[in-house]
């Protein structure tokens, strides 16, 4: 188990490869988000019930989806890292966390912005909102745990364990809050009560989501490059030339 399977897919080789991929993802992200916004604002009609406030969902829903996707992907990398003792997958997990936390924050904030005109309250203890909030706490916990550990190896592995524990926790929270809401009748407001969605709206939302995916790829890859450089700088392999190469290959 302890064999380093990724010995040959070295970070030094990955760094320039990531550098080549980032521009493509960035351009794709930019184009898709512009198209998504165009459809969202100019093609999609005004909702007869909610008026134009519903347009917030074009960022809210994709951001909420991304926050969960990214958490699962981060946990998957963490699990691979623990299972195969592979440092590059820990680096991926480390690079995903801040972007995931950011999307979670966006989802919460836009949720409040959508909730105020729709429900008349900035915040309700809805199962989705609550699990989103806990998701943010978990992202922050993982980032803080990593920051608190000086030894890189331990930091990688400890935050990986926490990420995996969190994957079990979030669905449990979702269902427990739903259960709790049915107990406290009256306080319960469900987002599923929103009206049936028109095809154009769905299209805009999906295009925005794909755009956010591309954005996440680009930013995560760019951050992995920073992580690689930061880690190489300390003479792990006692190999100074590799640092030079990485810097040149930029």
């Amino acid at each position: 188990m302890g064999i380093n399977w990724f010995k040959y897919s070295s970070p030094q080789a990955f760094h320039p490869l990531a550098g080549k991929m980032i521009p493509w993802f960035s351009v794709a992200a930019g184009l898709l988000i512009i198209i998504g916004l165009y459809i969202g604002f100019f093609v999609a009609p005004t909702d007869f019930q909610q008026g134009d406030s519903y347009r917030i969902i074009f960022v809210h829903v994709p951001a909420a989806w991304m926050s969960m996707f990214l958490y699962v992907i981060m946990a998957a990398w963490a699990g691979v890292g623990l299972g195969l003792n592979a440092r590059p997958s820990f680096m991926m997990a480390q690079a995903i966390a801040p972007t995931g936390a950011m999307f979670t924050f966006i989802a919460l904030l836009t949720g409040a912005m959508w909730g105020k005109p729709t429900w008349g309250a900035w915040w309700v203890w809805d199962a989705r909102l609550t699990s989103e909030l806990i998701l943010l706490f978990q992202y922050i916990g993982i980032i803080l745990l990593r920051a608190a550990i000086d030894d890189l190896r331990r930091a990688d592995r400890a935050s990986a364990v926490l990420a995996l524990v969190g994957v079990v926790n979030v669905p449990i929270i979702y269902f427990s809050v739903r259960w709790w809401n049915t107990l406290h009748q009256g306080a319960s407001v469900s987002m599923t009560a929103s009206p049936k969605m028109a095809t154009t709206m769905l299209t805009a939302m999906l295009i925005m989501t794909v755009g956010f995916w591309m954005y996440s790829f680009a930013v995560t890859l760019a951050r992995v490059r920073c992580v690689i450089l930061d880690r190489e700088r300390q003479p792990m392999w006692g190999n100074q030339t590799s640092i030079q190469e990485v810097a040149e290959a930029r």
Partner: protein
Amino acid sequence: MQWGSVSEFFAMGGYGLYVWVSFGVTALCMFGEVLAVWRRHAAAVAESRDVS
């Protein structure tokens, strides 16, 4: 196209504040993140040049 004028577009049927704060903050977060990663990378490259 449902917008009669530019001001109507920005008013968003009375929900302008909510809509534009949402989109604004999202844009701000994303651009901020890109900028932060960019600067971090530049700093990391500069430092690794110093080391070698």
